[in-house]
């Protein structure tokens, strides 16, 4: 069992990570908070399943359709809500996510609230890994460009961004659409991993969990998001033995993180080969300094 079980957990973590990466762009780098990304996952999940089941498309193109569907819906949502001030945007996404779930509850074509069984099991560890690597590269390249810098500027100071000629609305929109596309693809992978879809898989609790992962990992850090998704997906799985108490601890942990280490695991820093080298050098130089000063005491 060992290997299968661990690969399974990593696959689930990878699916979560896909949404978290998108949310990291939106929340960590652009400063917008969403409580509705489970809704985009749902849209992507159902659209992907529709393509593989009803149109017999191959898996990867179907996932692209799922991502595209979520992106289109997010563009419409963004058009009407992105002008709202911070917390109202947040509430609007919450309402959106719940509305998607309740609509799917009532669409009998997809099985309504009972769910949609019989989706082929296409998702595995390796394609999740591949997709996530591509997703991380895209994200990292985007962030280290003028477009990414503009998003960060919007996060830091909206008014100043406008004054230096950044179209704040446009960059919020780009960020939202990309994050929704990521969530849509994740939803598609989820459906083809569980082999069924049910609206209640995409509740407000799911959206909250995703945002919590981003914050836990550290706002403005891709590697933080990766770590966050790995830790916070696998931990509840490992703690499954404690059944219902694990969510009690989870809730407490969330409060604890907020009040004690709000900058998250990585706090805006990235884990890259060069940053590791720098860290190593710092430690070494500190140690040699310590040696020197100890020597200088004489």
């Amino acid at each position, binding site marked *: 069992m060992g290997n299968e079980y661990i690969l399974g957990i990593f696959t689930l973590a990878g699916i979560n990570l896909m949404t978290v990466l998108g949310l990291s762009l939106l929340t960590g780098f652009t400063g917008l908070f969403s409580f509705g990304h489970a809704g985009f996952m749902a849209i992507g999940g159902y659209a992907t399943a529709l393509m593989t089941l009803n149109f017999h498309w191959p898996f990867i193109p179907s996932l692209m359709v799922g991502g595209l569907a979520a992106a289109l819906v997010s563009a419409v949502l963004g058009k009407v809500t992105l002008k709202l001030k911070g917390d109202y945007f947040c509430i609007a996404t919450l309402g959106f996510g719940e509305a998607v779930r309740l609509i799917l509850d009532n669409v009998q074509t997809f099985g309504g609230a009972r769910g949609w069984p019989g989706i082929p099991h296409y998702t595995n560890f390796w394609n999740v890994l591949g997709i996530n690597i591509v997703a991380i590269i895209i994200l990292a390249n985007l962030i280290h460009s003028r477009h990414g810098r*503009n998003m960060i500027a919007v996060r*830091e*100071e909206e008014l100043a961004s*406008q004054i*230096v000629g950044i179209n*704040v609305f446009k960059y919020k929109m780009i960020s939202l659409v990309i994050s929704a596309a990521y969530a849509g693809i994740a939803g598609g992978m989820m459906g083809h991993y569980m082999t069924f879809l049910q609206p209640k898989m995409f509740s407000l609790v799911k959206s909250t969990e995703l945002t919590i992962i981003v914050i836990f990992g550290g706002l403005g850090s891709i590697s933080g998001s990766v770590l966050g998704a790995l830790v916070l997906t696998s931990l509840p799985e490992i703690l499954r033995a404690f059944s219902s108490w694990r969510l009690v601890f989870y809730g407490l942990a969330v409060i604890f993180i907020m009040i004690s280490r709000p900058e998250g695991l990585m706090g805006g820093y990235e884990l890259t080969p060069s940053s590791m080298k720098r860290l190593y050098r710092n430690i070494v130089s500190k140690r040699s300094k310590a040696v020197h000063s100890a020597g200088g005491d004489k």
Partner: protein
Amino acid sequence: MGILELHGLTKTFGGLTAVGDVNFNVEKDSISGLIGPNGAGKTTIFNLITGVYKVTSGKIIFDGKDITNKEPYLIAESGITRTFQNIRLFKKLTVYENVLTACHYNANYSIFDSVLRLPKFRKQEKKLTEQAAELIEIMGLESRKDLIANNLPYGLQRRLEIARALALMPKLLLLDEPAAGMNPDETEQLMKLISEIRKRFNLTILIIEHHMDLIMGICENIMVLNFGCKLAEGTPTDVQNDKSVIEAYLGVE
């Protein structure tokens, strides 16, 4: 005509008139000053020019084009930028990142180019980093380029804000109390810097300031505001000898 023309500019908040029927011309390549007691509506005029506030009535013409009530980022694109009275930097970014971000306007590669790291991205990005480095050098911030903006001393934060504004290669620069909180030495340096960058970048500059030495020292034309209305206008000597200005500042004896 001037590069910037304000025609009957008016802004009311509820029943309160913050700026009332102000007419003003800023000549191209000049340094002009905007002075007046606190609450006279100076910063409100900056907010109106840069599109932060919506104009109640009147017109703003810049470089022959009507820019009244345009989105702030479009106004920035047309060549006007500014600094803020209460400094608004990208606080958690480094000095270098602050300037580099503002340079964005001088590149046009697409998201696609950046995701795939296409040649266009590499070429333009190289140009941007050079430009940012040059600006930082001109503004004398080189030794601190990797410091987080928020950790800079106050005077240097103001300098950085000017550097960031210059990154847009503006035609008109609005400075909102650039010398606030500076000692006489720093103010002196700032005056030199302002004259220098004007020559170097072919700028037109409009300054709000309370330091009269600075205003009288470098401005060619000055407008005095009081209670949202224009009180006087002219050369520093004209304004200094204007009776109504003296009354407004010192009160009638």
